[in-house]
């Protein structure tokens, strides 16, 4: 105890100057009307001179400015842009604070089959990284565990909350499975060629994974002895009330996942990553399986690939009729999740229509995550989770938020970072 309080004292000394996160905003009490903005609906539509009204946290009206009477507080956003809050799927936001500091790391449990492990439990609503999302328009995230064959269960949170319970907008939305890789890397320390080669154990690993699923089904069917937590945690995937997110990249493995989904009669399957999904787009479309695509800001996997393959990858899928949204897992994924809008912008730079690029981080993401009844578009009845930017929010220069609302609450656009900015700007102007 003595040691603990000593450490606590140190922490206070270390962080004493810097207050914790921004205070979460109060509930909406008064109707708010935004007029004159270009409204990017999130379903591909755009209203250039719009009116948007929301009350008690819900959107109550959307239309062309002038066609509907304003209500409550009016915000004149002429010349500005309104977007539904951007959504960051497959993220470890709130699960890890500082990558290199193990004590702050809660994203990966030991063990191979962890469907019972729930990310929402470790979600840190007061993370400094979480608050840094809002100034860029990222207002919703799917907080997702990592590791193992089955990493665990994700939940969907809004990014302005006192605690995880308040943050959750959909608890335990899906289970995340890491499909085996048909390729494996040589172990250089054993003198092997360090490149990639076919994984000889691929089939064996697929069988291991499939066996777990069939075992879980058997457990769930039985009336007795069903205290197996990992098995039981699969139940909602089998009855179609929970999505199975399968993390997989290469062409052949995706085809194997499609077969697996059919054989196991899984109703909701989403491909996460899917670097080569564009090669099997017609099969994906046929089986109605969407893709949370590997990050746009990445380098091509193969030397011979088109330099812009990651940039145009989403467009290839959209063109083929596959439902696709962007996600940002990978190196420094948490801090960089705020750049999601610019990843969508990059897709637009490489050929996708701009409003369709907006869909990649709004309407499509909500559909894929199964939260499109609440968020993702500026439509009547949905949460007033939206923001006003002075310009095109997919472009760095003009992604400058004036206001952001989550469930109608006027959230702070300040952060640890803006505070330091002001503090040190102030230092030099004294």
């Amino acid at each position: 105890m003595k040691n603990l309080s000593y450490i606590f004292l140190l922490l206070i000394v270390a962080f004493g100057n810097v207050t914790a996160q921004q205070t979460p905003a109060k509930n909406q009490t008064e109707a708010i009307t935004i007029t004159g903005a270009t409204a990017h609906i999130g379903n591909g539509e755009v209203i250039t001179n719009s009116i948007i009204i929301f009350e008690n946290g819900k959107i109550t009206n959307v239309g062309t400015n002038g066609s509907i009477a304003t209500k409550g507080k009016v915000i004149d956003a002429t010349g500005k842009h309104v977007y539904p809050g951007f959504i960051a799927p497959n993220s470890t936001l709130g699960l890890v604070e500082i990558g290199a500091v193990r004590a702050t790391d809660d994203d990966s449990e030991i063990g191979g089959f962890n469907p019972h492990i729930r990310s929402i439990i470790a979600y840190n609503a007061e993370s400094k990284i979480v608050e840094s999302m809002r100034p860029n328009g990222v207002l919703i995230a799917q907080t997702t565990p990592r590791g193992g064959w089955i990493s665990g269960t994700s939940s969907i949170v809004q990014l302005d909350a006192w605690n995880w319970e308040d943050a959750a907008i959909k608890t335990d939305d899906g289970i995340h499975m890491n499909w085996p890789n048909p390729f494996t890397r040589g172990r250089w320390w054993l003198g092997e060629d360090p490149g990639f080669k076919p994984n000889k154990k691929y089939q064996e690993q697929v069988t291991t994974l499939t066996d777990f699923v069939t075992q879980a089904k058997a457990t769930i069917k039985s009336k007795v002895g069903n205290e197996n937590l990992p098995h039981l945690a699969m139940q909602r995937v089998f009855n179609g009330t929970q999505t199975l997110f399968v993390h997989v990249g290469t062409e052949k493995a995706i085809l194997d996942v499609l077969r697996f989904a059919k054989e196991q009669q899984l109703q909701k399957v989403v491909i996460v990553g899917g670097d080569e999904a564009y090669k099997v787009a017609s099969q994906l479309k046929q089986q109605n399986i969407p893709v949370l695509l590997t990050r746009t800001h990445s380098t091509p996997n193969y030397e011979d690939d088109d330099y812009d393959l990651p940039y145009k990858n989403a467009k290839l899928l959209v063109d083929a009729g596959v439902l696709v949204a962007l996600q940002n897992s990978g190196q420094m994924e948490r801090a960089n999740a705020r750049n999601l809008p610019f990843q969508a912008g990059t897709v637009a730079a490489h050929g996708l229509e701009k409003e369709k690029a907006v869909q990649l981080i709004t309407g499509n993401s909500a559909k894929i995550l199964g939260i499109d009844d609440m968020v993702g578009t500026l439509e009547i009845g949905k949460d007033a989770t939206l923001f006003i930017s002075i310009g095109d929010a997919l472009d760095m220069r003009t992604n400058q938020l004036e206001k952001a609302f989550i469930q109608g609450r006027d959230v702070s656009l300040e952060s640890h970072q803006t505070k330091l900015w002001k503090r040190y700007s102030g230092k030099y102007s004294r």
Partner: protein
Amino acid sequence: MGSILRAQEYFPKNDGVKTSNSNYTVFTNATIHTSPESEIQNGMLIIQKGKIAQVGSGLSIPKNSIVIDLKGKHIYASFIDPFTNFGIQKPKRQGNPFGGSPQYDATREGYYWNDHIRPETNPLHEFKYDKKKADEFIKAGFGTVNTHMPDGIIRGTGLLVALNNEGTEGDRLLSDASSQLLSFSKSNKSKQIYPTSLMGSMALLRQVYLDAKWYANNNVDYKDLSIEALNNNKSLPQIFEAGSRINGFRADKIGDEFNIQYIIVGGGDEYARIDKVKATNAKYIIPLDFPDAYDVSDPYMANLVSLGDMRHWNQAPSNPSVLQKNGVQFSLTTHKLKKIGDLSKRLEKALKHGLDKKTALAALTTIPAQILGKENVLGTLKKGAHANFLITSKELFSKDNIIYENWVQGHKNIVNDMNTTDITGSYELSVAGKTYDVSITGKPTKPKAEVKLGETKLGSKITYTNDWVTLTFTDADTSKTQYTRIVGAINKNPKFWTGKAVLPNGSETSFTAKQKPEEANEASKKKPEAAKEAPKVVSVTYPNIAYGNAALPKSENILFKNATVWTNESEGILKETDVLIKNGKIAAIGKNLNAGNAKVIDATGKHLTSGIVDEHSHIAAAAINEAGHNSTAEVTIEDVVSPDDINIYRNLAGGVTSIQILHGSANPIGGRSAIIKLKWGESAENLIYSNTPKFIKFALGENVKQSNWGDAERVRFPQTRMGVEQLYIDYFTRAKRYEQQKNSGKPYRKDIEMETLLEILNGKRFISCHSYVQSEINMLMKVAEKFNFRINTFTHILEGYKVADKMATHGVAGSTFSDWWAYKYEVNDAIPYNATIMHNQGVLVAINSDDGEMSRRLNQEAAKSVKYGGVSEEEAWKFVTLNPAKMLHIDDRVGSIKVGKDADVVLWTDHPLSIYAKAEKTLIEGATYFDLEKDKAMRRSIANERNELSTMLLQAKNSGLKTQPPKKKEKQHFHCDTVEHIH
């Protein structure tokens, strides 16, 4: 035959009377190929006591001779392999590579401070004549091999060994100091950590040479057995195992600095840059390990194989012929072949690909002999040379040639019995009233038989040894298991032979076998002549991978019409303006310029800027961190620039034209950097800026104190920021002392590390320092001020905003990330407003990448400074162009669009800071290195060529050739905290 060889005459003998044998063996009537260039028809070779006594024609045969008639046969000198580890085991690596704390000090005492420098190694102590392996070499035609201990950077001397199975070690060992062997790889005998990188190996080699000179010229008061050995080995042939074309260049560069011409053991990929290979003036030792065909039958798996690797499969067999055509002298080696016996097949392939037979022979005989300085006694057939020679049925390398015998030091090794009578042919075999048709095919020494009775084919087995044929065959009635056996001697007459037959019932009788006349079976022998067209070899590109150019892009005169021009000069952003590029320079800027002979490009609606400069990159390098010491000022990235990195092309596609490849941040004093232009396809030297000031990487914080390296890494000083300061003070103080000694006129030991630090103190080299938190930033400025110099650049500098005023006073620039943070504790206070605050305080600011992905879209990163803190667009654009150019002291050449500067420009489809902008054309010195349209065409040609090569690979597989599974080569993406591994 052992008796021919003499025991040394002063050896006592207790098991009999002392004898000697001075008889001659005389080979007559042969075609004697005394060298690749000369032959003697009907020649005579006389050997005695393991040496050639005489060679010529019409010689008189001494009385005490054994005469062997070789009519119709050929004699050649036996082959020499100059690079093997015959009879010497490579030591196993010590322990678990991840286990325990790293070892910084040497294991040995009395030797050089680095365990990987082992010139004193005389492998004789570990040499064990390997008769089994020797037989493999002998069968393949070798008489002599040079062997060594394949371990360490300087590996010690080579042993030249005659493959004389009957002799004693005293007979066989032609030299125990035939050569000195070197490589870039560390010894497995020690876990001493330095060097961890290729550039570390290179720096170490240089320092060893300097130390050897110092040791030789001065009275040092200590003993260094390594250096003494190195100095003793100086005059030996220096054989460097480079293992690849580019490492060959790296070795040659070191050799040039110290007036040593290495003999380079190549990688088999020399063909792709043959002009540069030739320019080394080195002799090469070339392996023949042509890659097996990739098995591309599963298209999903085939994706792994890059076009570059497919090409190498296709092109590698032409390597020897390309070397030959370009006049590069080379020896061949069996090094890297899985079996020595594969040599003949590989040679056949190389010959099919245009290697000349004479060159092949020279590469196996005279050239290796010259390399080893043994041309008087090996490699040719002349008086006094070792009696090492081959007897063959036909000319070497011709189809169906058979090596009969390989004599080594006068000792006969039978490879294929030349006295074997050729019994191949068709026979009428008569046994007990039945007549069988027997067809004997295959090698004369290993025939195969087919026996037919009428139209019925019978099961059969033939053996043929020592002139005796036995043939067993089944009965025509297959319902019974019974055999007829015949056995007979040929007696040099295959036309008609007889012998005993044992019938199925056990009774004995005789048989006769009568050869049918040739023409009778001519028809059956006539196989369709294999199509003899030369194998198709696809063209080499620069570099020789996907997106390489068939020829290097050339500078053109170009007029960009009607662009929005971001000058970065006082003129600001000019609308509807023309820019003329001439002779690689910006020649004019203005309205309605006259094109003259220049190509006109309509840039209406587009933006023209100077090329992006990345102050902090790690692409295009074979190594990034030398992590073996806390200071590694002796290493330089210039040694390890990799011009074949696809990221160069991808960066061009992002509008980048110049980058600084920085050493990593594994130590407080890192290595020197390379500042290059991304001239895709050029050689490493041609990428590097010449005549510009040079830089070195320093680093502070968690990386240098190894905070995130695990608990085993707590043994290297410094482990705290406090220690980091003292380390700098220590090194700079020592550098000052070194300078005093150097300037005193007294002898001094030249030290590359100290020389580099002196350059810093004297303003000839500039520091770019990896830094995060304000305390350490402040500290380094104070250290520099104490030693009267300035820090040029803080890179990363994520807390620069906290000390921006101090930075401005010191005059240091800040090259930062736009918005990275939260990946480790020291970046907890990193903010995206950093660039803005520093800029507002008068600090010269750049945005850098440190990342091969982000560097492709630095224009976007610059634009974030508009978002975070409201920097003007014009200034934000300078963050990735003019400002980094100033930091690197290359702004006299690049960084703005100004008449007289290099024409390193980018044409953008849109406002360059816009997310929607794409680089349409990227030029360096007036040559177009990236062009959207050309890129599209390349994609098509890559697809076509992949398809063509895949078909060839499938053909190879279907023709029964050996294949290998698809593979993707490791292409590591470096960041500044990447510690790579060398084995």
